[in-house]
């Protein structure tokens, strides 16, 4: 593809992203009957995500589209900023999102919580990833790569969960159990 054609495609992606985000913002601003603009916006963004696959490549196209889409959307959000007067300071504070939960301080619970979010979560995630790589169907490289991607995803999820959940003994049981089952299943079959 020539440079000019590539620029044309990216310009079309940017235009589709702008039109889609614009429609969504219109729906967001409307007091009632948001449905039509919302669906129009979602459809435009969906189409802008999909059609580049046929022009720029099945993975390359959507990745370029989603990257440009984020920039265009943020640009639109930034362009419609509003200035709050200084007197809104106090009212603003009161109307904010919820406060984080407060927990009674406990050294051993804090230590266990971070151990679960860190090394124990990592071992559990690795057990899950290894178990997938061994037992899932498909080519060996695909299984290993998807298994590999499962590891940060599962570990990140375990972190989010254990740092939020107060029932840390339940979290301990689930993570240790996951690690044992994952690695056990992997050792049982072996990689073929």
């Amino acid at each position, binding site marked *: 593809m020539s440079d000019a054609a590539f620029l044309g495609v990216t310009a079309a992606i940017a235009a589709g992203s702008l039109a889609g985000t614009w429609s969504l913002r219109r729906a967001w*601003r409307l007091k009632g009957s948001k449905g039509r603009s919302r669906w129009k916006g979602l459809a435009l963004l969906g189409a802008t995500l999909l059609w580049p696959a046929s022009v720029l490549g099945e993975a390359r196209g959507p990745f370029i589209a989603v990257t440009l889409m984020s920039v265009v959307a943020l640009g639109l959000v930034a362009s419609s900023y509003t200035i709050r007067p200084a007197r809104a300071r106090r009212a603003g504070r009161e109307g904010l999102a919820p406060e984080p939960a407060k927990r009674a301080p406990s050294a051993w619970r804090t230590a266990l919580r971070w151990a679960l979010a860190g090394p124990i979560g990592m071992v559990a995630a690795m057990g899950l990833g290894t178990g997938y790589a061994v037992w899932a169907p498909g080519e060996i490289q695909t299984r290993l790569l998807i298994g590999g991607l499962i590891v940060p995803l599962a570990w*990140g999820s375990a972190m*989010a969960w254990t740092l939020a959940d107060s029932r840390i003994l339940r979290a301990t049981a689930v993570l240790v159990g996951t690690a044992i089952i994952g690695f056990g299943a992997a050792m049982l079959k072996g990689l073929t």
Partner: protein
Amino acid sequence: MTKTTMTKSKKRAGFPSPDLVRAVLKGHSGLGLAFAALLYLVCLTGATAVFANEFYRWENPGVERMESLSADAAQLAYREAIARTEGAAEHVLILMPSEDRPWPSVRVTAEDGTQTNWIVDSAGRITGTLRESWTHFITRLHINLHLPQSWGILIVGLSGVALVSSLISGLLAHPRIFRDAFHLRVGGSRRLQEADLHNRLGVWALPFHVTISLTGALLGLSTIIIGAVGLAVFQGDTAKVYAIFTPPHPVEDTRPAPPIDLQPLFARVAERAPEGRISHVIVEHPTEQGASARFDVESSTSRIANSDTYAFDRAGTIYYEQQAAKNNMGQQILGSLGQLHFGWFGGGLVKIAYALLGLGLTYLAAGGVNIWLARRRDKGRPAPGWERIWAATVWGQPLALTGTALVALFTPAPIALIWTWAAVSLAALGTAAVWSPSALSQIGRAGTGTLLMALALAHPVVVGTGDSMALIIDGALGLIGFGLLAISVTWRRSRTAGVQTV
């Protein structure tokens, strides 16, 4: 939720319930604070490293540019590079000219591990060594923080996992995700302003954040993941896991021999892939009987990972061949990880988009701590010490990185850059004991702006102006510097005039 003081909602709440939101917010806040400085540094250096190839050109503006290099010239350069190496050459990497880096280079790794990167002209003559100290500094700071390789990569991979976790908890802790989708309120409460910026950046750039954090975490954790798989299914033999992805090696034969002849191999590759462009050649043990040469050829597929591979032994026999068009999904993912992580899959426009989104992610890391500090201040429990330390951290890094770029103009020694970065970072933290957060921000902003402008002016004088890319980068650095300085001056004037700014 035992042992917590959180209140339970009497009403039946939808998902996520207020209690869940508050609990998740607690975890999100704790994790963000624990990793904030590391995430900030990794994201800032990552956003800069997107332009690694452009910075190579910026550091070497006088090098002869070309679209291609003949097989004869490549052979000549490779032989001369080996001849200049003290002791036996272990590996040789010949990088052919490309759109991003329009000149060839030959990197030789000697037996003792020392590496020399030679620049080559279109006739294959070596014209000098590559200047790469700053590009190398910034990329290695991003990849392994200049720590011992395995530990550094692991720590950066861990920051990727922390980012994945923060994205998950951030989404769960954001019940007004749709209601606030387009709200960006500036002024008034600082906490509200920071929260708006944090949430809008986090939500609208979510696909980018997921891509960056997952690919980064996988790249960083790959060694221990392979170790775990090897331990679980190959009795600890990780070589068997690597062998699934890498080309096999020819039979080892360490008897000395003249450098493997690449010319006929170039011809064989041209026969097999007449439309392809050789991106690089890796020669293993070139002066041993068991030498091998691997050619990576950019094919005409539109896949992100579009490299065909041909590996030859000394006799010129192909012992491994892999076509990008026939790659399975796993091989495609593997080949795409680096390009997706650094934004090297869609030309200059995608690189600029990646840099902007990367800076947004950097702000996300910094803004999270700002929200926490503003919340404490709102609650009547300010943390002035942490406010100063955080301001020094946030503004110390741009100052330190710009300082290293300035030093790199005068010395190619990588260690000088590491010391400069460490010294400026520590000095910035030291000033936190003296100056207020607002003074630290202003001085950091003005200092970075001034240094960037000095860099933009000094670079053409010291290094040269032979490459238009170098001039573009100098122009961009000068503009960014001017912008920072202008913001700093405006901020100071408004303060002097008694106008309250946020």
